[in-house]
């Protein structure tokens, strides 16, 4: 049996590079590859990661969702504020509903009305920022009696030593992966991203599939907002700013193409986790926190370029 190295590199190059990176940092920093630190990193990426699970559906349809950062802010403000009004159960339910509703608005505009996804979600970024300020009146919100509410479990709890947010993120990944890979909806998502015209002619309801992908993205963001609200027990009006770009960076790093049609939940999990380990590793090595941005720049460009080069068999376009 011969091994096709190019094929192997193409399929597993990312994991190999990730392993290499972990090894290099582990040599330089004590305590990097300990269970405690790994769980710490996973906990830190659980919010971005959970959002990314939903956004992956949108990206696989060949579209973008830039509104998730603003959405995260609004939903975190809602869950924290409503906790004081209707209690934890009602707050969680309302937040999930609000996330589904905002996702549906995106879905109608992009899916059914066929407006440009980048611009629509950019407009929603601004609009939702406005709604947040309107809702909160511009002030920060806090959970009253943060010490005694069971709501703390989502962000601060642990189960058998594993932080609950990590369980939500990884459990969500298993569920999302099942839906994206094994269901009719997931196959439709891939088909629409691969070739929209062909999928329409094959009888796939393309508009509804795209709309549903945005609803998934809204739901994932709502779950992330519940983790965030529970972790912080409060919310500022800028708490989610910039998350949309970190989420996209992680998805891209994982190797999911922005052109749509390809990509998987596990790639997203690896990409987001990689960003987390880069941040954590550099901090452990003693670098300032902003050095991770420089390294992320290089890693993103290098990873995507290598992926492209492997696919076309040439380095240059």
């Amino acid at each position, binding site marked *: 049996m011969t091994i096709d190295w190019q094929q192997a590199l193409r399929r597993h190059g990312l994991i190999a590079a990730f392993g290499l990176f972990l090894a290099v940092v582990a040599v330089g920093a004590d305590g990097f590859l300990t269970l405690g630190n790994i769980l710490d990193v996973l906990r830190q990426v659980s919010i971005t990661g959970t959002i990314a699970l939903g956004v992956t559906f949108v990206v696989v349809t060949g579209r973008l969702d830039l509104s998730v950062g603003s959405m995260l802010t609004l939903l975190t403000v809602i869950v924290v504020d409503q906790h004081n009004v209707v209690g934890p159960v009602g707050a969680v339910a309302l937040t999930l509903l609000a996330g589904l509703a905002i996702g549906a608005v995106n879905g109608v505009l992009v899916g059914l009305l066929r407006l440009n996804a980048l611009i629509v979600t950019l407009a929603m970024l601004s609009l939702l920022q*406005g709604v947040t300020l309107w809702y909160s009146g511009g002030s920060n919100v806090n959970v009253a009696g943060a010490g005694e509410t069971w709501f703390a479990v989502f962000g601060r709890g642990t189960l058998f030593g594993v932080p609950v947010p990590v369980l939500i993120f990884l459990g969500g990944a298993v569920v999302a992966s099942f839906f994206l890979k094994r269901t009719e909806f997931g196959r439709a998502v891939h088909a629409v991203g691969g070739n929209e015209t062909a999928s329409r002619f094959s009888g796939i309801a393309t508009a509804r599939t795209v709309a549903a992908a945005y609803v998934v993205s809204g739901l994932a963001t709502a779950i992330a907002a519940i983790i965030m609200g529970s972790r912080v027990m409060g919310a500022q009006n800028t708490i989610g700013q910039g998350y949309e770009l970190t989420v996209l960076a992680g998805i891209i790093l994982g190797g999911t193409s922005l052109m749509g049609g390809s990509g998987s939940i596990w790639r997203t999990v690896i990409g987001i986790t990689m960003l987390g380990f880069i941040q954590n590793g550099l901090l452990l090595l003693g670098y300032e926190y902003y050095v991770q941005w420089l390294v992320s720049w290089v890693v993103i460009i290098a990873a995507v370029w290598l992926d492209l080069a492997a696919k076309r068999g040439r380095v240059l376009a």
Partner: protein
Amino acid sequence: MTALAARTRGAAADWLLRNHIWLFLALAVAVFSMASPYFLTVNNLSNVLTQAAFIGILAVGMTMVMINGEIDLSVGATLALASALAIGLQPAIGVWPAVFAGFLSGVALGALNGTLVALSGMHSFIVTLGGLIGIRGLVFVYTGEQALMIEDFAYTEIPEVYLGPLSLTALIFLALAALFQWVLTGTRHGRETYAVGDNIAAAHDAGIRIKRHKIINFTICGALAAIAGILLSMRLGTAEPNAGRIWELWTIIAVVLGGTRLAGGYGSMWMTVGGVLTLAVLRNGLRLLNTPNYVELMVMGSVLILALGLDRVLAARKGAA
């Protein structure tokens, strides 16, 4: 008779398709003039223009890149780096060399973005998303997270030159828009920029050197972001490491509002100036009316979606006619 009427209607729809942003602007100006006595004054409008100029200069560069069929998300970070260098290097090398160094940083980063896009074949969204993250990192490394202050306040007097009601900053914005409108329509580079954005495969077959045009346009975009950053450093007298954060998004909103298409091949500086002014007038007018900040954000989002819908309707009507 009916044929003539139909043709007139077609021509009107065509004009509207190209200029709907100026209609929007006229409407906004009319509404705010009636609503606030302070709006339609020379002083206020001159202020609006100066405030619009920063996003405006970014938007001129973004328009070049977008007509070319690409996007540049890194302009806000590039602006911040140029502004930090222009102030931070002054004690070491003097005012104008520092300003020049700031400008060069924009040229270099723009050229880097363009070269990466052209050589790798990666989507510019990815390349410049990386740039947005990394260049902000450069700014933080250079400034050490501190806001840099100028020592000699003569620096802040430099842009305080007025031609009638127009500030130097506003004049630079308008001059750059005019210059690049000429580049777009009067030079080979401009015409081929449209061709590449419209249909890259056809442009390639026609022997157009696609990579060169992309690199040039990204370099222009970076250079203009640096100019905006330098002017901002002169206006504020400080350079904050977080300056220009999410300005790339406002810039894209302004350009698209004007009518330039994200898909490439269609648009003009004339449209972009309209989009930039409309955004600035909306902001200023709503503030004069004492509306809370959130109304501004909601109006901006709604107007953008409306503009997109209007563009779709007009384009469909024109296609049918």
